[in-house]
């Protein structure tokens, strides 16, 4: 920011100064006076194409580095699910603790927000952290940050979303890790653990009838699948992340696992974003369960078929 500001100031001031200087120095002194006809100068033209281009490349490069880092969350993050809907925010801590228009995080920890929208496009922005990301219905977006100072900071909705767009904000509270842990456990009563909620849904919605954990069902076992590479019917592989799980629930025919029939019905319109998040949490919790030798969708490690 400072870098670009300085360059901009330099050119801005220089050109303005030149204009003002020429404006006064070369003012007309008698009515029929002409200016000196100078048609151009190749060296000057080349100079002021090349130099700005090089400077622009440096600005681009610096910004690109920051951005790429921002788009790739670190591995060990505290994951918080954030759902935006007209006109409020719901955040769900890993323990299942829910907050409305508030977000509590520990200082010094990498925090990843998984963003979902129930209706239109929103944007979760925390100016003090210099971060924001659109929240788009139909897929998940993620953003990450590492708070470095304890305190309370505004967050805003930053994508126009209708009537109360300007009221759709709240506060991020950054706490010492011990305070955060205390807050988390203290306020947890009455809040459903998302993994348990997801497990209940898994049974209620009859997922369990096909997705047998031993791999002998009509659908692949979900043990260990979160984060792994899944082999699809067309030979390609895909990483089973939150987005893949969500898609598999809402549009199962989009990616069929190799060796399986397209039998799974779609749950589009039958589940809220929250329910999908709970199911995802449950499936994530199966990560450490034993993967059956057959009846799993996970792609073989060495690529041998």
């Amino acid at each position: 920011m400072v870098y670009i500001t300085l360059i901009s100031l330099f050119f801005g001031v220089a050109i303005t100064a030149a204009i003002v200087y020429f404006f006064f120095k070369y003012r007309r002194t008698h009515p029929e006076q002409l200016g000196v006809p100078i048609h151009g100068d190749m060296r000057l033209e080349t100079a002021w194409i090349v130099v700005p281009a090089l400077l622009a490349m440096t600005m681009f490069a610096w910004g690109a580095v920051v951005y790429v880092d921002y788009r790739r969350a670190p591995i060990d993050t505290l994951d918080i699910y954030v759902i935006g809907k007209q006109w409020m925010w719901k955040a769900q801590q890993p323990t299942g603790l829910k907050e409305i228009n508030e977000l509590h995080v520990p200082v010094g920890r990498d925090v990843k927000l998984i963003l979902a929208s129930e209706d239109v496009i929103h944007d979760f922005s925390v100016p003090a952290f210099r971060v924001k990301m659109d929240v788009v219905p139909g897929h998940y977006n993620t953003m990450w940050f590492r708070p470095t100072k304890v305190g309370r900071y505004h967050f805003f909705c930053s994508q126009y979303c209708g009537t109360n767009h300007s009221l759709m904000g709240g506060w991020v509270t950054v706490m010492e890790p011990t305070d955060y842990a205390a807050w988390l456990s203290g306020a947890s009563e009455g809040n459903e653990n998302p993994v348990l909620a997801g497990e209940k849904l898994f049974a209620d919605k009859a997922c369990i009838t096909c997705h047998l954990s031993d791999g002998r069902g009509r659908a692949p076992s979900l043990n260990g699948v979160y984060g792994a590479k899944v082999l699809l019917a067309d030979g390609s592989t895909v990483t089973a992340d939150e987005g893949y799980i969500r898609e598999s629930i809402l549009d199962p025919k989009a990616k069929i696992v190799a060796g399986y029939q397209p039998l799974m019905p779609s749950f589009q319109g039958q589940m809220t974003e929250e329910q999908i998040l709970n199911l995802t949490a449950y499936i994530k919790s199966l990560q450490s369960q034993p993967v059956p030798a057959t009846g799993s969708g996970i792609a073989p490690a060495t690529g041998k078929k």
Partner: protein
Amino acid sequence: MHRTGELFGQYKTMEQQRETASLGMWVFLSTEVLFFGGMFMTYTLNRSTYPDIFSEASKTINLWLGAVNTIVLIASSLTMAMAVWSSQVGKKKLLTIFLVATLILGCVFLGIKSVEYHEKYVEHHIPGWNYQFEPGADVSTNAHTQLFFSLYFAMTGLHALHMIVGAGLLLWLIRQSIRGRFTPEYNTPVENIGLYWHFVDIVWIFLFPLLYLIDRH
């Protein structure tokens, strides 16, 4: 009011008038490329996102009617080209005949198109109008096949609209041709409307495989 074939006030020569009209038509057609292009892009992206569903949906549109229509349109481009040639060599009677033939073929195309649309209506495949892909189809299948049909109707509908405009232009051309207005020295409207007609034909040549032919097992 200026009559067809006269020099308009802002031009200096007939040559300039002709060049200008011709360039104008080419520039207009380039805007049409971008116009249809936006929809082609949307269709292609959606097709690659939902290849199986789109293939399912595409099977239910009438391949034979589409194929006949393709032949009809190509034939109409042939008759149009013959019309242009006739005007270039001064064969006025032949010009009128070929223009009428083109118009008839265009109308045949539109007629077959309405039969196709009617079929879709009967099958409840018109989006937004009691849409149901098949009895028992679930929400997701309905939604994605409806996407296919929305694009199908939007693209073929826009194309048909252009055909109707073309038919109107042909009517005007026929009227002028009967009055003997076109000569080897002045046949600009025939050439330019011919260009337009060929363009509309080419759009169909892309539409047909994209909508009817791809992935039809």
